[in-house]
């Protein structure tokens, strides 16, 4: 149920985001989601891609620093209170480093949230116990 997410360290300079995207595009890798956290001097680009193993290889070859971390994809209700409900489960009191919404085009009632827990294994067991629907890597790709 763990989804490999790639995090990329980039200096906050014009053209760096392009360099990252271009090396992935040249290798035929599709970006499924992208978020950017920035701290002034540098940024962390977090992406979920069609082929994470190849992506890391390609980035590495271009001298770009990247790491792979496990995140969890949860289905939540897209209606009011959906996220609040997820976080009211016991897993909501674990340490969450960050979260973001995963783009879904054809779903009106279901949203997908990507969560990065400090301890993903514990989170998975708590979420499953609470009946939260977790998506596998395959399901995300569809």
């Amino acid at each position, binding site marked *: 149920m763990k989804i490999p997410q790639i*995090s990329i*360290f980039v200096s906050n300079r014009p053209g*760096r985001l392009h360099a990252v995207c271009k090396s992935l595009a040249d290798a035929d890798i599709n970006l499924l989601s992208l978020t950017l956290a920035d*701290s002034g*001097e540098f940024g962390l680009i977090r992406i979920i891609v069609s082929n994470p193993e190849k992506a890391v290889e390609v980035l*590495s070859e271009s001298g770009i*620093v990247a790491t792979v*971390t496990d995140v969890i994809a949860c289905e939540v209700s897209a209606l009011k209170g959906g996220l609040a409900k997820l976080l009211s489960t016991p897993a909501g009191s674990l340490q969450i*480093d960050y979260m973001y919404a995963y783009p879904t085009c054809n779903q009106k009632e279901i949203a997908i949230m990507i969560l990065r827990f400090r301890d993903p294994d514990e989170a998975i067991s708590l979420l499953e116990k609470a009946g939260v629907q977790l998506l596998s890597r395959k399901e995300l790709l569809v």
Partner: protein
Amino acid sequence: MKSSCWNDQNGLFLPEMSLDFMPVERLKQVQLQRLQATVSLAYEKVPLFRSRMDEKKVKPSDIKSLKDIALIPFTMKKDLRDTYPYGLFAAEMKQVVRLHASSGTTGKPIVVGYTREDMEVWSQVVKRGLLATGYTKDDIVQNFYGYGLFTGGLGVHGGLEALGAAVIPVSGGNTERQIMIMKDFEVTAIAGTPSYFVRIIDVAERMGIDLRTLKIKRGLFGAEPWSDGMRDYIEERSGIKAYDIYGLSEIIGPGVGCECECQNGIHIFEDHFYPEIIDPETLEPLPDGQEGELVISTLSKQAMPILRYRTRDITAIENTPCSCGRTIRRIKRIGRRSDDMFIIRGVNVFPSQIETALLRAEKALPHYQIVLDRKNHLDTVEVKVEVSRDMMSDSMSDMDALNKRFSHSIEQILGISVLVTLCEPGSLPRSEGKAKRVIDNRTQGGSL
């Protein structure tokens, strides 16, 4: 296993190596005789040396003992620049067979020349360094010092050829190809700048190649100061023995001195280069064991004899016996250069202190650069640090914590606050494989 002149690893007598083991009294006789010849040559052929000595009313015949060297005026880097290009040459150009020059990043380059005899001496001293650190003619050596005007590449190359090793003159740059060659050519030993080898280690790890599994046994590193921490880092990460070779173009290039397998100081090839330590403030000679600025006089150079050259390197002469048995004296490894030092808010700072702080914080040796600036009449220090894959995290708070660990560690050592900026690998400039550690943007009138 230590090699000695009487029973080296091939069981053969090597005359050039025996020079390292000369009885001290004999060595002093050789030094005095050569010093007298060098002073006479410099006085007769080089107007600058003659006028400086005349000013102090010193004649070559006044040099009656080695101590009398203190009568001779110092030579500075500025003298080499002011006499650009050939003003300090004692030989005629028809005798000169090689010219090298500094990169000249701070104005005109300095030019140095060699006669055929000088070239012979140069390759012999490098060879003695190679023998002292366990290189043999069976080695396949990858030389990634820069080839060209810089003395590093061709200087070490000459010694390797004299030794009879198989030299790969790959020069610097193209790190992935360097690693491919190391592996495919079954390289057994290397030579180059330590900062570039740290880069090679990082790239190899990224490529999934463990240098410890290759055949490389040893490396000779020089051309820039490198700390003991950096040595530990190199030895641990690459599984080789890392030795320090010392030299400077003004004197001959690499091969002024070299460590032996004991790794406890740099033996100076004293029969060709006479070392002294002076107090950089009072310019008075200091006794062995005391730390100060290294001053070197050439004892056999023909094309360009140099008298009492102020190297700006801070070290001390160690005259205690080395367990290798060499009688030539050692200097402590150079940790700092007096002209690398910068003064920030009244505190003297050496780049090596920053290096120590980074190593302490992260047990890793990232490439770094120090940028000095002045904002609202206040000096600022920014330390730019390249982030490697090992240091990186996907969490912003971890990255902030990394930044704080670096700045805290630096502040503990220097006692002043600094701004640490994390940046991408490869984004900080490097010249000729030599790391440029300090950029001073302060617009101060005049310099030292």
